[in-house]
């Protein structure tokens, strides 16, 4: 792979990560959000795949395959199942911050991510670390979605966006952080999604919906 093509593909996949994160903020339809999240999983896997091809590492290629299966296959499928169980109520109708303002906030968060992660780029300037701020931006946007959405499933997607961003940063700056930790992290994420999926189900049982505004009983 030539250096120019490598840069191009790196930029393209990183750009796709950010773009899908923005689209998640933008869209209201939960089914669409899940589809976008799956696309982001593909982009993340492609990013890792590009790194693997560049370094000629078989191990990394296998990891890329794992990322693809987990983030573009298993997790979206779990989310879709939770959505199917949720019945007709499939839209994020009233986010705490309206969508136009959320989009502007996402823009601000992206700039913030660029500003904050300047030391990362300075420490080891290379095409990969230069793309790392994009991963940080995805983390921040995910956190924003987690905080401002009212539907349980949207919050879950926000959490997963954060996780995708962290994974992207991890691969961009260090090509992963060791196999044991990698597998552990993937397992933990899967389990968290399962736990939250089960809780969503229970919530529907006892509250009759997954609008988190209902969660008002515990306070001081």
């Amino acid at each position, binding site marked *: 792979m030539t250096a120019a093509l490598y840069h191009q593909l790196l930029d393209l996949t990183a750009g796709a990560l950010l773009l899908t994160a923005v689209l998640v903020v933008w869209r209201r339809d939960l089914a669409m959000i899940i589809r976008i999240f799956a696309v982001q999983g593909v982009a993340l896997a492609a990013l890792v795949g590009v790194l693997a091809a560049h370094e000629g590492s078989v191990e990394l290629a296998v990891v890329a395959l794992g990322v693809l299966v987990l983030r573009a296959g298993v997790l979206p499928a779990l989310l879709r199942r939770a959505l199917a169980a949720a019945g007709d109520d499939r839209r994020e109708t009233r986010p705490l911050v309206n969508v136009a303002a959320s989009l502007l906030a996402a823009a601000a968060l992206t700039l913030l991510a660029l500003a904050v992660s300047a*030391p990362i780029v300075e420490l080891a300037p290379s095409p990969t670390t230069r793309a790392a701020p994009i991963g940080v931006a995805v983390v921040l946007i995910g956190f924003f979605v987690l905080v401002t959405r009212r539907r349980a499933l949207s919050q879950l997607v926000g959490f997963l966006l954060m996780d995708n961003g962290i994974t992207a940063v991890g691969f961009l700056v*260090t090509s992963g952080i060791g196999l044991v930790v990698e597998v552990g992290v993937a397992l933990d994420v899967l389990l968290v999604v399962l736990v939250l999926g089960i809780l969503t189900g229970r919530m529907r049982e006892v509250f009759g919906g997954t609008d988190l505004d209902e969660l008002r009983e515990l306070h001081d």
Partner: protein
Amino acid sequence: MVTLLAFAPILVPALGAVVHLLLGWRRATTWVGTGSAALVAVAAVLLAGQAVRAGDGVVVAGFLLVDPLSAYMLVVIGAVAVLAALATPAHLAAEIAAGRADERSAARHVVLVQAFLAAMALAVLAADLGVLWVAVEATTIVTAFLVGQRRTRTAVEAAWKYVVICSAGIALALLGIVLLNFAALHTGTGAGLGWVELTAAAGRLDPGVTRIAVVLLVLGFGAKAGLAPLHAWLPDAHSQAPAPVSALMSGVLLSVAFYAILRIKVVSDLALGPGFARGLLLAAALASLAVAASLLLHQRDHKRMLAYSSIEHMGLLALGAAVGGVAATAAVLLHVLGHGLVKSALFLGAGRLLQTTGTSRIDGVRGLATDQPLLAGCLAAGMLALVGFPPFSLFASELGIARAGFGSGVAVVGWATALALVLVVVIAAALVNHTSRMLLGDPPDAPGTATAPPRLPRSTATALVAGPVAAAALGLTAGPLAPLLTAAARTVGGAP
């Protein structure tokens, strides 16, 4: 020998989980959990002996590290686990009798508690920040089911908040780990995330990246430790979890997360100088104390009251860690143990109270001293210990933190300590006031309460008495723990 001992605290509870998984909850397996907790405690004590003799850390099987600090934390886990496990059978029996649980949910409860213990042991024994992260996240997953066990509206709400806030917080910590790993790789020493190599290479970490990483790590593990600003899950989760689980969560899980912060502080101090982590921890400490004080003044729920008191004590630990140095760190570690013993006993007592009176409201309980004198006595002793009365060890440790704070020679730390003491006094007044309203006065004469309350089961009573008594004994003399405490404090405090 060390290998076997190091694996025991992880494998024994895991084995216990498997036993319960296979055999379920029945007469024969009633005391399996208690036995495994006791074995963890024994292994912890033996490991502690080894660690003190060796002085330095020993890496076992590549991913476990036994040094005085991890051995000490293991002792804390063992001690609190024994208390909680002693009370578990009676608690479950009462729940089953009241129809709030059945054999299946009881079996699930004990399986999860054993897995929880194993995860916590792995967290403190991890030789590597990455493994530590995985273990801490595993505790979140396991305890989420325990918190939401009762399937009521409030329990589900608490579990949701708990998982979302803790997972998001801990995800930030993961980003911090990634960045720290990045900085470590660029030191050129071949260091990764292992504590030993990371500490050795800390002086050469890039300050810019390390700064971002430390902020994220303190924020993330701080969320799990119940430090402000990400503390909102704590009162809900601790008040909704079953009593033995609340005892474990409040008594040790918070401290395990705090242990991660202590380890990170070592790296941060070497890489960035002591000022950076100190600033972060002071801010978190004062914010936590302020939150606890403001919400305790008009607290109406006695389990939430205990939860907010946990936030207070985590704030005190953060204050002590911010002061730094061997003396303050020793006080912090002593405080961890004292708080664990007392708070778990109190949560067990509160759970018993909830079972016998059916309410967790403070004004729903009156005249407990005449109704159930033993329970009331234990609660009173625990509460006195919690607010820092001598002879309990919390008095000694709080005094140690305060003395180190005033003697640190840094003006900001001195002022922060003074402010913290004012807040602690406010909290103490609120706690004593609420508790005395519950314990004293005439018992209510409502119909149906004329029957004598059920007798306190002997095992629960043992746990309730043992907690405060152990704390009092520790307050009088640290005894055989003293060398371990000093060695562990040296691991963190280093040269002052």
